[in-house]
């Protein structure tokens, strides 16, 4: 019987991988994923207005502002990751610059600063609309410079002035000993991690359930099921479907990772830039802080538990999909019957996203151990530190019990379901099948 199980798995995988759709989809993914990873470079390669450096010509009629202003603007601009704007002192008159910008329909800006009897005024002249970030940065730089000039004009000595200008360092105190300020990074980082974890998981579960349904339906509707079941027991057939679909999911996940690595490799080889370069300086710095803080090690410790949860969840969802598929007589019926399954996954998805907002919510923690919902919620809560090992162990234990029940009773429903071609009294038949012997 083991040989027949191997044969069913081998044949099932061969059937899936040999389909033209598997090949087409993977060729598309192999092209699209590296493209997405390199999208910023691709956009730049083809050129456009964004490639034109924008000059801010400063006409400083006060002769006091320019140096401070340009330093402050450059600092703020670097912080948000923009680098195509150059601030410089105007060497031409306003009239000449205006004429030049008009003629070239240029994006360059003219910033004129005046001192009217002790009151500083500034005007920004442009040919077209100016993006709000540039205006905001300029405004902040002007105000900050004005404040500094005011302080400098007072009788405060240079050391005192530096002290006043120095940023205030906020020291954090926690009344609970085990707390670490780095954990607060998690609330920000979790917004980034959660979708990265959930979306592939969510998609793979959908792929697996759809695949099991389609395959069982195909074998049922073609009546080949009757021939297969004369040679292997329904239980072996059922198990083979679960193993096949999960191996397929793992294989497809590995291919996703491979395409991602290829994308990063191309980025490194051709452009010499890191993937984090496209996130902006602030996020990159935050990730660096996060890695240096030791939080990454904490997350890595969670990985074995997350892997166990993922494997068990895939098995549980596959079992449920297999049982539901056996009860249906065609693909349309299965699509309807799998709606509750999709809702379960969706609920888990949204609760996991809400977890970072409603921190340590008792309701969410309880949901995180409930089988099927726990699949997505528990790993996410563990990664962002809202639950501990105890909760994850409870979730795993409950999931194992669910899997045992699904195998024991589900295989009985499966045995009756795969030979049922009539939807009349379906639920009655299924409930009755629970009373049969294995």
């Amino acid at each position: 019987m083991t040989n027949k199980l191997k044969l069913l798995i081998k044949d099932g995988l061969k059937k899936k991988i040999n389909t033209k759709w598997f090949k087409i989809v993977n060729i598309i993914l192999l092209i699209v994923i590296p493209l997405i990873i390199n999208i910023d470079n691709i956009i730049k390669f083809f050129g456009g207005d964004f490639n034109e450096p924008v000059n801010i010509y400063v006409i400083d009629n006060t002769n006091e502002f320019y140096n401070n202003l340009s330093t402050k603007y450059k600092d703020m601009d670097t912080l948000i990751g923009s680098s195509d704007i150059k601030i410089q002192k105007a060497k031409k008159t306003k009239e000449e610059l205006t004429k030049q910008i008009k003629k070239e329909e240029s994006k360059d800006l003219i910033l004129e600063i005046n001192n009217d009897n002790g009151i500083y005024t500034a005007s920004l002249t442009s040919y077209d609309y100016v993006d709000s970030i540039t205006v905001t940065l300029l405004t902040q730089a002007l105000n900050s410079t004005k404040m500094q000039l005011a302080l400098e004009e007072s009788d405060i000595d240079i050391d005192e002035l530096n002290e006043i200008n120095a940023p205030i360092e906020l020291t954090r105190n926690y009344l609970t000993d085990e707390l670490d300020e780095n954990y607060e990074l998690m609330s920000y980082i979790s917004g980034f991690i959660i979708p990265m974890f959930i979306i592939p998981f969510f998609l793979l579960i959908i792929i697996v359930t759809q695949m099991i349904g389609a395959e069982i339906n195909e074998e049922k509707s073609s009546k080949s099921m009757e021939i297969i079941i004369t040679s292997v027991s329904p239980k072996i057939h059922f198990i083979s479907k679960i193993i096949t679909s999960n191996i397929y999911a793992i294989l497809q996940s590995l291919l996703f990772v491979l395409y991602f690595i290829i994308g990063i490799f191309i980025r490194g080889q051709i452009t010499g830039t890191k993937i984090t370069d496209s996130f902006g300086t602030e996020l990159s710095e935050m990730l660096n802080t996060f890695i240096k803080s030791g939080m990454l090690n904490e997350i890595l410790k969670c990985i074995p538990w997350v892997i166990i949860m993922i494997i068990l969840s895939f098995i549980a969802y596959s079992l449920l999909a297999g049982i539901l598929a056996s009860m249906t007589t065609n693909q349309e019926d299965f699509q309807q019957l799998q709606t509750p399954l999709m809702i379960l996954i969706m609920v888990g998805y949204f609760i996991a996203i809400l977890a970072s907002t409603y921190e340590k919510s008792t309701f969410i923690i309880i949901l995180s151990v409930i089988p099927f919902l726990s699949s997505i919620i528990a790993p996410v809560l563990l990664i962002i530190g809202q639950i501990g090992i105890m909760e994850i162990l409870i979730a795993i234990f409950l999931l194992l019990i669910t899997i045992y029940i699904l195998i024991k009773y589900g295989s009985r429903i499966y045995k009756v379901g795969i030979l049922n071609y009539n939807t009349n009294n379906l639920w009655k038949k299924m409930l009755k099948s629970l009373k049969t012997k294995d």
Partner: protein
Amino acid sequence: MLKVENVTKYYDNIKAVDNLSFEVKDGEIFGLLGVNGAGKTTTFRMITGLLDKTEGEIYFNGKKIDYNVTDKIGFLTEERSLLTKLTVEEIAHFYGGLKSMTEEEINKRLDYLLNKLEITEYKTRKIKELSKGNQQKIQFIMAIINSPKLLILDEPFSGLDPLNIELFKNLILELKNEGTSIIFSSHRMDHVEFFCESLCILVKGKTVLKGNLKEIKEKYMKKNIIINGDVIKEELEQIKGVLKVIKSANDYIVNIENKEVTPKVFDYVKTKKNITKFVVEEPTLNEIFIEKVGEKYDK
């Protein structure tokens, strides 16, 4: 040898098969007949282990049928049961593998059967690309790929032309000669008559007729003798046991009381001249089937 012993199957409160018993010896072709819904498919499913029996037992070569025995069973279902996206070669390897055959055994047997059914050129073609008749041939090949010791044939000739029916018949007889026990089901009574030595007719799960076909036919012998020649109606009517004589356009139809009257009529006919026909009418299986099934439904 297959032995079905007092098998009953209930679906909820409906008795689909009622206390069915029969035996199929090695090298015997057994006919299991009945109208749609009579319980044939349920019986086949119980024999192949697809369905559990409510009561009774089924033995194959003295052992209860389980998944250790099913490698020796072949099943041709009434409807198409092929994975149409696969090629002929792929499906043979799949079904053959499920019957614990090695790659080499499958290749050898497949080539032999494709050759026998004259479709060697379709070996690498996908099932869905084949005609209905050729799909039926592939389905038949899959049922016998494992050289089964027990073969169930449910409407094997469906969708076949007369020439291909002959090819199938030859293969079925070849299997019979090799000692395969065959259960044959068809609505075509001429085919059943051609193959089956014994049979069982089911009506609503109940056995209404069972036994050796020859004996059944004798039992259901029509009591008519058809004569063509210079006979005299009144003289025939004088023979003891003759009930009625009808003169048709060319023949005389002599209705007799029982088969013992036949020699008396024959002795009379021997004394007459120009006799060109003396036929003791035999009932066809079709007539027996209609009589038995109709009889049951009438009640």
